[in-house]
């Protein structure tokens, strides 16, 4: 397998789009359910804590800069225990990708094309992802460089067009929620924003051309993604109000439907939906890429490309059955996702750090 290298700027863009990923659709509703109009405070605190987590991941990545996360787990925890943990980790990434594939199909089905079956969206989207994985992470990184300006322009348009609808009174009273629910809100926020960043250790710092400044890229990407998330969550509360935001499944889409400039620029919500289609693409791609490459790395295969088609097609099949209905999915996101992702995003890196300290594994 030829070594694939991406530049620091590409890495920063990937981190940014990845961290926005599904959070852009899920967070506004789940946060306002817990903390109402204080969602923006929670988002700001969540981004700050998220940056601490990024620092933590960088430390873990620097245990041995020449190895990816899968190889690192195997080296630190030993051949047998390591392999078992890696298999669980790969199941985690694979199933998270499947969940997001369902999520994207569900979004398209409920909001855009109600007559089309779910499998059409998952299947078509998966073809693009499989194609991207087949071409490799370098090509993917260049394509994110092309998608980034599109994303950024759309985001600026979104903020400018929605600004006439803003009602500042929705934010009052500020900091009215009790501290317990604020901590709960922060947990929800970082479980969507910062915990999935652990997957980035598969390319950081292995596949980055200048590992030293890769650290900077990681921070910049996370900060940029955090700022965009804070802006969108705040806008949701400001435009729809906390109650309306909490009762919707896709509040940011409902917000885009409110755009109306002089009764002339209207109904542009589907253009705005490109924002989350782009970010969801980056996130599902990454989960899928990591699962495929991870399997190839633990089995020590020379080429991962032959695994793409079987794994991709079973992902489409799984995405049809993992959530029987939307209630199941919302409940999963609200109750199970926090401990489930924390196991792999907090516990696993922590164990790696401690064991590496004890066994005195040094970076060579």
């Amino acid at each position, binding site marked *: 397998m030829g070594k694939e290298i991406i530049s620091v700027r590409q890495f920063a863009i990937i981190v940014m789009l990845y961290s926005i990923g599904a959070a852009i659709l899920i967070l506004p509703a789940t946060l306002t359910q817990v903390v109402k109009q204080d969602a923006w405070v929670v988002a700001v605190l969540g981004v700050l804590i998220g940056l601490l987590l990024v620092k933590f991941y960088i430390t873990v990545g620097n245990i041995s800069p020449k190895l990816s996360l899968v190889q690192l787990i195997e080296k630190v925890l030993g051949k047998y225990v390591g392999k078992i943990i890696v298999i669980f980790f790969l199941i985690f990434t694979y199933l998270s990708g499947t969940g997001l594939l369902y999520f994207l199909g569900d979004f398209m089905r409920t909001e855009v094309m109600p007559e089309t079956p779910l499998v059409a969206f998952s299947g078509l989207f998966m073809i693009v992802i499989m194609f991207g994985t087949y071409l490799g992470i370098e090509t993917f990184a260049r394509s994110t460089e092309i998608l980034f300006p599109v994303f950024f322009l759309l985001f600026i348009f979104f903020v400018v067009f929605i600004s006439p609808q803003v009602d500042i009174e929705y934010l009052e009273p500020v900091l009215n929620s009790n501290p317990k629910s604020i901590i709960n809100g922060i947990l929800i926020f970082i479980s969507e924003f910062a915990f999935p960043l652990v997957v980035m250790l598969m390319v950081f710092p292995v596949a980055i051309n200048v590992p030293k400044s890769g650290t900077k890229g990681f921070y910049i990407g996370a900060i940029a993604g955090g700022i965009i998330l804070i802006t969108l969550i705040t806008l949701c509360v400001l435009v729809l109000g906390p109650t309306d935001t909490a009762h919707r499944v896709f509040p940011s889409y409902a917000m885009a439907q409110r755009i109306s400039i002089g009764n002339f620029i209207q109904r542009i919500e589907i253009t705005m939906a490109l924002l989350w289609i782009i970010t969801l693409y980056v996130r599902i791609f990454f989960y899928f890429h990591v699962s495929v490459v991870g399997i190839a790395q633990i089995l020590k*295969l020379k080429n991962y490309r*032959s695994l793409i088609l079987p794994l991709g097609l079973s992902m489409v099949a799984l995405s049809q059955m993992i959530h029987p209905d939307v209630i199941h999915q919302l409940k999963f996101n609200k109750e199970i996702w926090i401990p489930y992702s924390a196991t792999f995003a907090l516990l696993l890196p922590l164990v790696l750090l401690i064991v590496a300290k004890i066994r005195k594994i040094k970076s060579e």
Partner: protein
Amino acid sequence: MFKTIGILIIFTAILLFQLPKLKQNGEKKEIWTFSILLFISTTLCIAVALKVKVPNPYDLIIVIFKPMGEFIKMAFK
């Protein structure tokens, strides 16, 4: 029935497309991994297409992490 035939055609196409390439490289391990994964994938696709009840992996995750999730829910109520 048509769904099953369609899926089988797709997977045969994949097999015919990938196997010669893998054989050319002469990687035994790769051929085995590919074949096993393709077999699992075909079974899964047909089962889902025919609406056979397949055990849901998410249900297992829910069973494992439910106590922890309930704890978090209770702690921050």
